[in-house]
């Protein structure tokens, strides 16, 4: 008894009932499809978030202040620059305001920073100039805007030296930033940066929202972070008053969250694969009953238990295997289409595809085992008697 003949037999009986075979395979197709699409998109989204955090700049430590009684003022910020391992510091003050140019308006969050803000956040000037120390010292009413904001307000016109109104006060646009692309967290080009001193006075506050610290290097960011934390503890005398995040930590937290999410989605999809397997088992059991007489005939002319077992196992694994291949192809195509639509970068993930296919095959074998065993155990006389 060679495998080739049994495989041929299995294919013959699968093909002889096309509709049922298709419906049975559908469970597996959907399962494999769902696993591949959900995991691929999950990983694509993870990569997107990671990219957007990385694009914030390297060696970045951000400090957020929550204390109600005591605050960090603009001048306190420069104490951080003296700490070991720290290269640059910028205070950050963000406020959401409406921006107007002639008749155009747009809602953007306006960020106040010092002369280091742009370089720390990896922004490059495309035209015009950046914020200078003088602008910060003299509270100049100038603004550097992103490409999208420029387009929204000025269309095709050159924004440089134009006056815009930020929260009702007049600012002069002195620079436009280079394209920084968009990430999962939003369009990095839709931004307005002004001197922190200017926007703080306009808002009538002396306390900054947060401070961004740039370490000398990735290696020194650990030391820098420790020093920043020590300084803050000394300053506030309360660990709950502030929060220090290094970029590494943020990446870790986010990666953990997203990979947990991906695993969860994959798990749910995996359950649908399992359900597909139960569908196969169900159909195979029906098939065994339907084909009792055939099994009897085969046994009467010399088929052993192993022959019948293998025939039925091959039938169920061919169904799940072919279903797996179809599901994988559809899954890859759909992942591509969806990720294009959502602007996520999608890479073909071979281990996931192979894993999903392998799992579907295993499901077919596992759920085929019981019906096949049942078929092979039928006694020839009883099977022949069956109508």
């Amino acid at each position: 008894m060679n495998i080739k003949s049994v495989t041929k037999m299995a294919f013959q009986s699968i093909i002889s009932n096309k509709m049922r075979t298709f419906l049975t395979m559908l469970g597996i197709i959907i399962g494999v499809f769902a696993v591949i699409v959900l995991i691929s998109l999950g990983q694509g989204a993870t990569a997107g978030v990671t990219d957007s955090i990385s694009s914030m700049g390297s060696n970045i430590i951000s400090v957020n202040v929550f204390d109600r009684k005591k605050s960090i003022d603009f001048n306190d910020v420069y104490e951080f620059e003296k700490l070991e391992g720290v290269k640059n510091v910028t205070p950050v003050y963000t406020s959401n305001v409406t921006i107007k140019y002639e008749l155009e308006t747009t809602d953007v969050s306006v960020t106040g920073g010092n002369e280091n803000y742009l370089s720390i956040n990896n922004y490059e000037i495309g035209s015009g100039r950046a914020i200078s120390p003088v602008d910060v010292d003299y509270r100049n009413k100038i603004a550097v805007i992103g490409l999208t904001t420029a387009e929204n307000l000025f269309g095709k016109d050159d924004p440089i030296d134009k006056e815009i109104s930020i929260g009702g006060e007049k600012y002069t646009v002195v620079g436009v930033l280079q394209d920084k692309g968009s990430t999962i967290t939003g369009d990095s080009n839709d931004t307005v940066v002004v001197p922190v001193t200017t926007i703080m006075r306009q808002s009538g506050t002396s306390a900054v929202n947060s401070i961004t610290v740039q370490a000398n290097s990735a290696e020194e960011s650990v030391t820098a972070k420790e020093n920043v934390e020590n300084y803050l503890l000394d300053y506030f005398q309360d660990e709950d008053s502030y929060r220090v995040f290094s970029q590494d930590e943020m990446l870790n937290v986010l990666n953990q969250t997203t990979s947990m999410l991906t695993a969860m989605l994959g798990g749910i999809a995996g359950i649908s694969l399992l359900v597909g397997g139960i569908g196969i088992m169900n159909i195979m059991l029906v098939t065994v009953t339907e084909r009792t007489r055939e099994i009897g005939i085969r046994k009467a002319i010399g088929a052993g238990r192993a022959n019948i077992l293998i025939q039925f196992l091959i039938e169920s694994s061919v169904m799940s295997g072919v279903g797996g291949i179809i599901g994988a192809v559809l899954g890859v195509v759909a992942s591509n289409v969806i990720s294009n639509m959502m602007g996520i970068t999608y890479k073909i993930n071979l281990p996931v595809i192979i894993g999903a296919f392998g799992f579907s095959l295993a499901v077919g074998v596992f759920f085929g085992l019981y019906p096949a065993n049942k078929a092979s155990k039928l006694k020839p006389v009883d099977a022949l008697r069956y109508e």
Partner: protein
Amino acid sequence: MIYLKDITKTYDMGSVQVQVLRGITLHVAEGEFLSIIGPSGSGKSTLMNMVGCLDVPTTGEYYLDGKEISTYNEKQLSKIRNQKIGFIFQKFNLLPKLSALENVELPLIYRGMSSKERKQRSIEALEKVGLTDRMSHNPTELSGGQQQRVAIARALAGDPPVLLADEPTGNLDSKSGSDVMNLIRQLSEEGKTIVLITHDTDVAKEAKRTITIKDGLLLDNIIN
């Protein structure tokens, strides 16, 4: 060739036990042509299934070719069915989705024969029953007589020494029936050991010897 010693078969029907065979001793010599007659329900088919290793006796001994078969396991029995025995059923028992040729090939597939040899021997068997022109037809496209001849070709393809026919003409008109009987007589002349069950006393007389079974017991033993 076939030696049954004190064979009994009891079916356990839950509350009651039905003894279908009540101690049958029977010897069939090599090359002999034996017919079995008896009323319906007397246990003929049950006995035949025992001889064909489709079923095992409750008690008693069964020797085939001098070997004690009743102790064989399922795997050994399937080998015996495949190599030593050719079965011809009243209802033909062909696989409906396979062509005539594929049906005839089936026992050879289970024997593990190469596809070339298989095809050759199957065609030879179909030649013997005069159906080479219907090889690619499915059973549903064949008449009852033709189907039974395909079934005979299937029983012959593996060249087993023993042929068991359980009412082979039972579902056929008299013309097809006599065709089938001619074939069986010819096979007997070629030296096959044949056991034939029938309700037709004229058909039974074709055999060298006829036994009668009634209520699970061997009643008569007539040399024709």
